[in-house]
């Protein structure tokens, strides 16, 4: 996995700049944040060299490493690390945090004896007991509220929604209590819960099991939302979410649980508020998250063959947006395409479009284009389902259109 290097040296290696000033990162004064540079093995896929200093990587590789994630995909030829599937990465992250802090517990339907309907909590009940990995009855509102009450009184629950759509039943608790109690209590009670579960369009699961709840939750003040997309960031975000004092909603995707990747053996966490650079480029910025990242990368292959150089960023943090990474990209490429699985109306893409227009309007050479799912309940029929979701061909067409 490549490293990003802090400082002007690396910045100039990247590209030619827009004439406007690029403000250097200056985050060292934030309390509690350790050195941003991180590390690990040296080479990436070879296309870019960041001039890293190997002494830096050696020094940091043994410590807990917050990843500021301007990384390309994991280099599978690296010697350290182990390969696993995304759901195993989530499980590993969860297990490590449960080992580390006895206050971390899990609650949800079928998380215990059944091992989780997507096997994310497999084996945990045997190891930690039935109270730490609690099989709840089917009462989302009540057990989410129970998790919130437990968090207020000292525990750190990880609440699983068997499918994100079921959390609609818990909306009362998530909006009113999870998001707001820290504020309405004047800061007296913290609610360090993690609410996680799979969402997104699967394979013909029908309308109700194919929902994208990120758009419904995004307006709730007081919560953070992140979406994982690779085993690496799944584990990292899970750990970061559990450690965070804020309530965090971690969106997983039903179709991504079997992705395989090699991840580091040493402990690491990902930063909850940062976006991930998937593929640096020059011509256009493509912002995406979760499963659409893979559709975008498929489209990127085609685009590269056609001579385009897209920059792909996995925004990861759905609330709040990492406007620094996104902004730097916009300032470089001047064109933005957002590709998401969320609904067109009121989705994450809609909010992101507004944020980009508001903050980076001067840097844009073309209007921000947003490809989202159709405002349609996801049909059962395979062909119809395919047409509700953004496909690589549409992404290619959109890029060609924007780059004219």
């Amino acid at each position, binding site marked *: 996995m490549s490293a990003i290097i802090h400082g002007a040296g690396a910045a100039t290696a990247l590209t030619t700049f827009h004439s406007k000033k690029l*403000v250097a990162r*200056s*985050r060292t*004064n*934030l309390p509690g944040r350790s050195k941003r540079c991180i590390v690990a093995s040296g080479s990436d896929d070879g296309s870019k060299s960041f001039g890293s200093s190997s002494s830096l990587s050696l020094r940091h590789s043994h410590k807990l490493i917050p990843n500021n994630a301007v990384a390309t995909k994991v280099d599978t030829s690296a010697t350290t690390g182990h390969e696993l599937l995304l759901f195993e990465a989530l499980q590993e992250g969860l297990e490590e945090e449960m080992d580390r802090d*006895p*206050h971390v*517990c899990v609650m949800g339907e079928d998380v215990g004896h059944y091992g989780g309907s997507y096997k994310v909590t497999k084996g945990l009940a045997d190891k930690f*007991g*039935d*109270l*730490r990995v609690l099989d*709840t*009855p089917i*009462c989302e*509102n*009540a*057990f*989410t*509220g*129970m998790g*919130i*009450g*437990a*968090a*207020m*009184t*000292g*525990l750190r629950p990880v609440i699983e929604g068997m499918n994100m759509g079921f959390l609609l039943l818990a909306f*009362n*608790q998530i909006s*009113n*209590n999870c998001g707001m*109690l*820290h504020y*309405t*209590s*004047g*800061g*007296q009670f*913290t*609610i*360090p819960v993690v609410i996680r579960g799979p969402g997104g369009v699967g394979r013909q699961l029908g309308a109700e099991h194919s929902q994208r709840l990120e758009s419904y939750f995004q307006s709730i003040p*007081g919560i*953070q939302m992140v979406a994982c997309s690779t085993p690496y960031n799944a584990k990292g975000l899970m750990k970061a979410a559990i450690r*965070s*004092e*804020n309530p965090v909603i971690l969106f997983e995707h039903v179709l991504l649980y079997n992705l395989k990747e090699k991840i580091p053996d040493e402990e690491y966490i990902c930063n*909850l*508020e940062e976006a991930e650079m998937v593929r640096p480029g020059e011509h256009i910025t493509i912002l995406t998250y979760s499963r659409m990242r893979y559709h975008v990368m498929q489209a990127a292959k085609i685009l590269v063959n056609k001579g385009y150089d897209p920059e792909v960023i996995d925004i990861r*943090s759905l*609330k*709040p*947006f*990492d*406007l*620094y*990474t996104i*902004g730097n990209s916009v300032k470089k490429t001047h064109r933005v395409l957002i590709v998401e699985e969320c609904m067109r109306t009121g989705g994450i893409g809609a909010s992101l479009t507004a944020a980009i227009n508001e903050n*980076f309007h001067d840097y844009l050479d073309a209007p921000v284009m947003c490809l989202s799912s159709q405002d349609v309940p996801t049909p059962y029929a395979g062909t119809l389902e395919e047409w509700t979701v953004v496909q690589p061909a549409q992404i290619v067409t959109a890029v060609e259109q924007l780059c004219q």
Partner: protein
Amino acid sequence: MATSFSATLPLHGSQENRLLLPPIRLAPPPSSFLGFTRSLTIPSSRRLYHAHAARRSPVVGVQEVVKEKKVTNSLVCILITKEEGLVLYEDMILGRSFEDMCAQMYYRGKMFGFVHLYNGQEAVSTGFIKLLTQSDSVVSTYRDHVHALSKGVSARAVMSELFGKVTGCCRGQGGSMHMFSKEHNMLGGFAFIGEGIPVATGAAFTSKYKREVLKQDCEDVTVAFFGDGTCNNGQFYECLNMAALYKLPIIFVVENNLWAIGMSHLRSTSDPEIWKKGPAFGMPGVHVDGMDVLKVREVAKEAVTRARRGEGPTLVECETYRFRGHSLADPDELRDAAEKAKYAARDPITALKKYLVENKLASEGELKTIEKKIDELVEEAVEFADASPQPGRSQLLENVFADPKGFGIGPDGRYRCEDPKFTQGTAQV
């Protein structure tokens, strides 16, 4: 009227009293945590006729019980000591005076919004909360001023919160319906009904977790207060199920004051006897006269002891009444004047005063001293609240997140909370 759930109340051992409070037998003690089954034998012999009838007063007041005892026993069985009696009296007077002052302040334009007063229901709050320790938790609804006061939150802090001042218990950010105190384990204050019940269940879950997973000595119980209207809400039933299933140390206290704003309990509930819903989930259901603080206290003692011993939850239905409207915005035109008069005659404070004086536990003078002391306390609270500053602009963005990094990274690469305008409350977030 059926109910009451244990025969072991020490002072109700006589023949006569057994008629008033028939005991029921509980099933034998606890079994393992997971999916236990047990049978609960509750005598179903008494079915009270309810449909469309005005409510009966099946449980008699303290005065009658005392009279009974005086007649049958040469020794007078007193339920409380003098010290306890004075504590209870003071707490109820505090609740009443405070709420009366709230009404005054509201009409003078010192507090706004929805303010729900507790007049008439003091016996429930005092009866339960005065048995709790500081580390026990209380969860309430929007009618939470008196629960907060009974739990130990100072009158100053509550009044300032109502005035929206920075010295309020929630820094002015919560208001009337969100009284929280970490120090006193007052877990709120919730505006939507039923919302607090899962939170209370969670607090009870933490107690159990501390005992069984963290192996700490934890006997903390949680008391959840809510009304009759809430008992038709799904969250109530979901939590009764989980509390009984996991044997959580929680007491569900229904303050059945018969009215949910303008909706009579009898018009909205298929079976108005709420206490019966407890046994349906595997926990004892008890009905008690909520206008009688001593009766409430006796039932509360049993329920709290059960919870501390790890025997699980109890559902207690307190028959009570609110003397004022649902909130200060409610003209209260729907309720029958005769009904109001009937319950006004059962004012819990008057009843306790009479009990204390007649049983020579306290003199009128001592009680008057308490009343005066409380009057001064409440006046002082108002002065304090008046003199306190209002929150400044800088407070706007604080407390939204426990970790303000949650506001994210701005276009300049810095976390937004590092922006100096953030502490001024004017940062763009």
